[in-house]
């Protein structure tokens, strides 16, 4: 367990801390961070890599709420609903209490999600051991159907993006027949294009280019005072926290639905079910911060259930995390609990530890943090590009990967400008090989 080693505990702490900042800074996303991180942790021991990634994952999902509350710019899609009441609270001078409530609600939700993961995953895993080859194929088909939920406005664009991802995964030598596919006589292409280089291009470079369009937007400064919420306030909202966590777990466990849907559904539930909110919804109701924040962090545990037991990701972030697990020799899917049960429990332990650190880092240093999220994009974007370059180079110590990353970055940017989503491409890359088999 991560708890037993100081080094691993420190890595979870570092990951959670960085994740909170990455999630909070508009323009940086957890998906981008995890994609880049995969390349750096390539040569690491699997346990250390999982510690860092688990921390970044948990911290990043929560971190999005910070900028939603302070700047009304959600750091992640899962934090969109938090801004509905979080930002009005900040304008009323209660940014501190909004952050405090968001943190405690996130941690409670996170723990409930982990409990669900620890209890449900082994049961589902046992059931999935009865799968025959055709069931695996159907499972892979189900994964590709997730494209529908990641497509954005147009299903056809989403399907194209998913198919493009599958095509990219096929470049190189067919592992079964040894036949070269789409190599055009190039020896270099026989090994294919490394999917991490594609992911860094699609999520790092292309996102940085998109952000250049908003260089001129200046964030509003907020005054942060009292942060830790009172016990009375927490106990008063405990039933809402529990209900929102259950919504988050349920939505997360459904393949294709992620934290953004869970948060919006929990927010909608709070609006309908809370009779006497602290203020009207949309004008700074505490309940409007608590419900979505509980749900999106509870969703982490829920998302991990189909991801680890069936190998089907819930959203773009979990698709990238599946890629990371593959890189480290793990095979998320029915055989994970048979071949490497210790790593499943290690992952559960890492997420638990990350939630403990989330509480510590979430309630401390908020004033300094409020200044940091106002960092200029003109400073941030060049650093993202440079880290993307270093990260891609680190995969194989090869500049060819960097050229691919750049190419996919620019291509992804053009696609994004016309409403194509990057999530389905990654999904196609990850789920393409099982289909082929």
């Amino acid at each position: 367990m991560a708890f037993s080693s100081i080094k691993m505990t420190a890595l979870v702490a570092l990951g959670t801390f960085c994740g909170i900042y990455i999630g909070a800074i508009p323009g940086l996303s957890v998906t981008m961070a995890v994609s880049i991180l995969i390349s750096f942790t390539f040569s690491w021991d699997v346990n250390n890599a999982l510690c860092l990634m688990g921390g970044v994952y948990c911290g990043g999902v929560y971190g999005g709420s910070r900028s939603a509350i302070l700047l009304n710019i959600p750091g992640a899609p899962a934090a969109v609903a938090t801004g509905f009441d979080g930002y009005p609270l900040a304008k009323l001078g209660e940014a501190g209490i909004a952050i405090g409530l968001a943190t405690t609600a996130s941690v409670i939700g996170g723990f409930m999600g982990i409990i669900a993961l620890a209890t449900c995953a082994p049961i589902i895993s046992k059931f999935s051991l009865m799968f025959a080859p055709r069931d695996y194929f159907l499972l892979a088909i189900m994964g590709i159907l997730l494209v529908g939920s990641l497509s954005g406005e147009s299903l056809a664009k989403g399907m194209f993006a998913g198919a493009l991802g599958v095509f990219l995964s096929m470049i190189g030598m067919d592992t079964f027949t040894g036949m070269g596919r789409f190599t055009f006589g190039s020896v270099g292409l026989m090994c294919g294009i490394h999917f991490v280089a594609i992911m860094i291009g699609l999520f790092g470079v292309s996102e940085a280019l998109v952000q250049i369009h908003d260089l001129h937007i200046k964030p509003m400064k907020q005054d942060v005072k009292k942060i830790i919420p009172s016990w009375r306030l927490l106990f008063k909202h405990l039933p809402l926290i529990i209900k929102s966590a259950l919504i988050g777990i349920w939505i997360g466990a459904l393949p294709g639905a992620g934290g953004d849907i869970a948060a919006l559904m929990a927010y909608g539930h709070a609006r309908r079910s809370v009779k006497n909110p602290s203020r009207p919804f949309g004008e700074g109701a505490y309940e409007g911060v608590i419900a979505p924040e509980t749900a999106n962090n509870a969703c982490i545990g829920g998302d991990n259930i189909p991801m680890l037991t069936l190998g089907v990701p819930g959203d773009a972030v979990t698709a990238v995390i599946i890629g990371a697990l593959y890189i480290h020799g793990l095979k998320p899917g029915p055989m994970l609990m048979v071949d490497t049960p210790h790593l499943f429990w290690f992952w559960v332990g890492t997420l638990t530890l990350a939630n403990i650190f989330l509480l510590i880092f979430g309630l401390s240093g908020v004033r300094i943090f409020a200044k940091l999220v106002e960092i200029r994009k003109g400073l941030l974007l060049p650093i993202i590009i440079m880290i993307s370059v270093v990260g891609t180079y680190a995969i194989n110590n090869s500049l060819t990967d960097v050229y691919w990353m750049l190419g996919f970055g620019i291509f992804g940017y053009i696609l994004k400008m016309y409403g194509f989503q990057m999530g389905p491409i990654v999904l196609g890359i990850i789920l393409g090989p099982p289909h082929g088999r």
Partner: protein
Amino acid sequence: MEDKIEQNPPGERILLWFLFLFSIFILVNAFMIPHLKNLSSSGAFPIFIASIMILCTLRILWKNHTRYSAFKIGEEIGKAIPLVFPKTVAIYTMIIILYILLLYPLHFWVSSSLFLIGSFLFLRGAKIIRSFFITAAFLTSIYFLFQYLFRVIFW
């Protein structure tokens, strides 16, 4: 009253035609993969995927054809370039390409220093002296972090 037809962003039609031609190119190449005998052969799945890509692009082109008809091709290209690559994005994309091309001849540290300072100034992230300081501090931390923690071997 005449209904106003909502227009898709200029350039989308060109992109979709490009993607359509690219998909056909993939399909042709998929057929050229040898030993196409049954569903298990190497080329079968690529043919299926390329067909999906073709159908999707055709579907979007067909669905939006009335919206696209508002533009003439030349006029569309003229409007698409400033939309996708406004001046700042176009120049910065060129800077990134230049940086990556210079990585090999100039080596990582020199090209990255030039890139960071140039980018900070171009994107107005910091003024000259501050840019130098931030670049120096950032590259130093990169050196220690990636050399010792992540063990990346720089070229």
